[in-house]
């Protein structure tokens, strides 16, 4: 396989994952504004931060308003992480690696692009927002379904999966990092409605507000929420789960090619850290420091994979 093809698959799936995650963030933000009285503009500030685009937003629009924030996240052309930009980039990568994709996967991607291009051509009216967000998630789901149902389990598949989980781990860790302070024991006032509300919004942005209840029953506790999103190996958006997948896909590549790279060692050590970790220790060390360190190691791994498998050179 061409190095450029591996790169194209990796980024195609990173962008599609990102589009879906941004849609979830907007969904969670929307939920907040619906259940809250008074101005919600401040909440959107947090959503923009979670998406990692707050500074760029301010450069463009200045003051944070609900309408501008939603538009910036869904369809702003100059925002490379807006849903439409992600779908554009994802599809461009898919076109580039067209010969590596099954017809079903390509068509699901192309149809996603065709429909969203139309839906996001103009500013979305508030009344249409829920349906638009639903379409984004559904279309991303169809791509995933076509991909799982039709692609050979070979190196093409491994690079695609690695892209998905590097992106997802990055997203989850950023969502947590923006809100880390509401999870700190010192500031939390257990049971206060403000905190409950903040915690629920974190869980919603990773579609985990229901599953949290199945795993931890009882009420929201900051350390349980952190545990769920960082260390729980059954939660498909947790850092630990993402690294189980990254490591196993890298292992297949190593076996297939008969060659290990620095990336393998880096991924193994992150996985071990997550596997052996205790949430109490993480909180004691400092949640923010832990997350910052994780984000930078995750990025480092991405660079090492692109070097080991000759994405660019």
């Amino acid at each position, binding site marked *: 396989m*061409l190095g*450029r093809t591996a790169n194209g698959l990796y980024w195609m799936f990173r962008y599609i994952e990102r589009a879906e995650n941004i849609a979830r963030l907007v969904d969670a933000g929307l939920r907040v504004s619906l259940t809250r009285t008074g101005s919600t503009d401040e909440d959107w500030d947090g959503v923009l931060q979670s998406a990692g685009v707050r500074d760029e937003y301010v450069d463009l629009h200045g003051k944070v308003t609900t309408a501008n924030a939603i538009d910036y996240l869904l369809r702003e052309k100059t925002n490379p992480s807006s849903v439409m930009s992600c779908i554009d980039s994802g599809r*461009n990568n898919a076109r580039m690696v067209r*010969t590596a994709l099954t017809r079903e996967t390509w*068509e699901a991607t*192309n149809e996603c692009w065709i429909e969203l291009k139309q839906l996001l051509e103009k500013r979305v009216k508030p009344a249409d927002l829920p349906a638009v967000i639903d379409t984004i998630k559904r279309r991303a789901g169809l791509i995933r379904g076509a991909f799982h149902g039709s692609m050979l389990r070979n190196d093409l598949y491994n690079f695609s999966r690695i892209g998905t989980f590097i992106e997802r781990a990055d997203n989850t860790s950023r969502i947590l990092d923006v809100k880390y302070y509401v999870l700190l024991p010192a500031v939390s006032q257990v049971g206060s409605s403000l905190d409950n509300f903040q915690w629920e919004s974190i869980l919603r942005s990773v579609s985990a507000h229901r599953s949290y209840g199945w795993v931890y029953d009882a009420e929201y506790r900051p350390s349980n929420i952190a545990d769920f999103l960082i260390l729980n190996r059954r939660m498909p958006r947790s850092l630990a789960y993402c690294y189980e997948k990254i490591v196993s896909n890298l292992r297949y590549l190593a076996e297939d*090619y008969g060659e290990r790279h620095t990336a393998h060692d880096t991924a193994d050590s992150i996985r071990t850290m997550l596997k052996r970790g205790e949430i109490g220790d993480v909180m004691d060390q400092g949640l923010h420091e832990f997350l910052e360190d994780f984000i930078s190691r995750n990025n480092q791994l991405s660079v090492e994979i692109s070097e080991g498998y000759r994405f660019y050179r």
Partner: protein
Amino acid sequence: MVLAMLFALYSYGPKSGNAPLAFDEMLTAEDLPRPPYKTYQEWYSAQDPAHLIQKSQDAESIFRRTGITFAVYGHADSSEKLIPFDIIPRIISAREWRKLAQGIEQRVLALNAFLDDIYHKQEIIRAGRIPRELIEKNEAFLPEMIGFKPPGGVYTHIVGTDIVRTGEDQFYVLEDNARTPSGVSYMLENRETMMQMFPELFAMNKVQRVEDYPYLLRQSLASLAPPGCKGKPRVAVLTPGIYNSAYYEHSFLADTMGVELVEGSDLRVIDGKVKMRTTRGYEAIDVLYRRVDDDFLDPLTFRPDSALGIPGIMDVYRSGNITIANAPGTGISDDKAIYSYMPEIVEFYTGRKPLLENVPTWRCSEPDSLKYVLEHLEELVVKEVHGSGGYGMLVGPTASKKERSDFAEKLSARPSNYIAQPTLSLSTVPILVNKGIAPRHVDLRPYVLVSDKEVKIIPGGLTRVALKKGSLVVNSSQGGGTKDTWVLED
């Protein structure tokens, strides 16, 4: 009732008041179906027009979903367009096809012999059959190819000969596309779409297969690997990338042949071989089907600013370590200035009169011809010698007075840049329109694969159709559409 409605627009009988625009391939002047269309016409007469319009819309959504689009240069916002597809097949009988195929084969063999001669002994020039400056001053002539014999002696591995019809037995070759003819993916996708939508038609008519094209292409390319290639030859398709207008076709061909689709940035010359960067390291390529123009192929030899090519590939080529298809420098054979000499070229190398006719052509570089052309602009089609895609041409009879006088100025300023031809009355075939069917002008591009052992002509090809009533311009960049082309079995 339905029948009357369907044929209201398509009738030449005495009561119709219509005279044929040109030779019609479906109906005679007495409104009788010609033999190849008989079965189709019976089937068609029993169809509900609304249902056919629906099918036509289905076809469009199939094309859009599959991403069978092309890019139009110079349109900022409409970067991806569909080529309109008409669901009525263009049907050719086995007898007509045999005649065409023989003529095409003769012409393609002559093209290869001509190229071999031009880059070696140049006997045709010495014999005084074509002027020396026509070759040596031509931009498409590559001095780098002089004295070099490509593997198997084949220059044009893939040819797309443009053919028009003006009568029952009257065919003309309009152009010999010997560089990198495009459109074959449409031939295949059109057939695929028709088989999906109208399986019953294929049960009623014995249509010759085109589906083997990717397999035959791969086989043909692999058979011309360089002599030094050990084991199974590694074939790759070279594309300028996803923003190229024909990118869909490049990826389609790589995909259906089961070979890598590479860009210049994937390739590098290492140890005298062209190698591609894979996830496991660099691996050699033996045959490169390039969809990149000569100019961009090697920045060390040709355009130094090219980012699409591979520095040093021409050295590898000349030392016999890679096959490039089509060979660099083949453009000299399909140049519009050379075109007017094709009858001489065919006769010189095959020793026989051409089986297919050339369209009479005035070379504006010759003063007498220029004078004639300027005096008869309203009857002629004037083309740029190096142009393609229907850009920069004048269709005299349909142009306005102002367009003609503007063009006359350009023509007088650079006469050698132009050739002129009579406006041919291209044959018509039915297309589906809102109110039923109506006749429109068409051309035909069959695809030809050349190896050192044989010339294979795929029975069918790409039919391009001018969708506007009366228009003779079939190019997709100028609003033309395509059709599935059937060659029937005997």
